[in-house]
């Protein structure tokens, strides 16, 4: 069964350093999502791609976060510089289309900023 791949699974970084996360969605899925999840909370959407285009990045802290999906397949989320408050689980998900379809989530990247 196809799965969403994410790497790394765990990342520890110091404050003010740069960090990057990678996601490979299920083949053929046009929509890709990056979420941040703080312990005890639901996933919060950071950015949504439709193919290679960003359709929603309203909750992305653009002064330090960036995301790209250059060829409409895999995607990278970057934080520079990292802050203590960025410690969270970062989840990637994909779906066949933006509406009416379930999302398939990857295992997530647990980020700890020290």
């Amino acid at each position, binding site marked *: 069964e196809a799965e969403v791949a994410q790497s790394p699974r765990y990342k520890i970084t110091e404050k003010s350093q740069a960090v990057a996360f990678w996601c490979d969605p299920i083949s053929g899925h046009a929509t890709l999502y990056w979420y941040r999840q703080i312990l005890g*909370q639901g996933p919060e959407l950071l950015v949504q791609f439709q193919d290679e285009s960003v359709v*929603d990045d309203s909750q992305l802290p653009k002064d330090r976060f960036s995301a790209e999906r250059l060829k409409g397949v895999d995607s990278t989320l970057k934080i520079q510089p990292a802050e203590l408050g960025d410690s969270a689980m970062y989840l990637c998900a994909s779906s066949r289309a933006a509406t*009416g379809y*379930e999302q398939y989530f990857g*295992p997530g990247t*647990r980020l700890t900023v020290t």
Partner: protein
Amino acid sequence: SQKIEQNSEALNIQEGKTATLTCNYTNYSPAYLQWYRQDPGRGPVFLLLIRENEKEKRKERLKVTFDTTLKQSLFHITASQPADSATYLCAQEGYSGGYQKVTFGIGTKLQVIP
């Protein structure tokens, strides 16, 4: 803005009983409601999707209802088992800012006691 609310308190039930989880939304009726299961340290896993014009959806021991009058969805697990213990997330999908947007609730933690 649209909000989705789940009971943040944990739900403890005896094995074999039916667990009922509640998801309430404000303002407009979402086009779809989705339910996911999340185990600690893992990404959410899709369970069921129900459309605005559907009142009920079933899958094995799971049942979801969608009441647009009450602005509420109920998620039922019949004959609950300890393996059903997890956090259950409700997600709504509706138009916001000209495109489809999915918003997750904070989740309800279910504990099935043997």
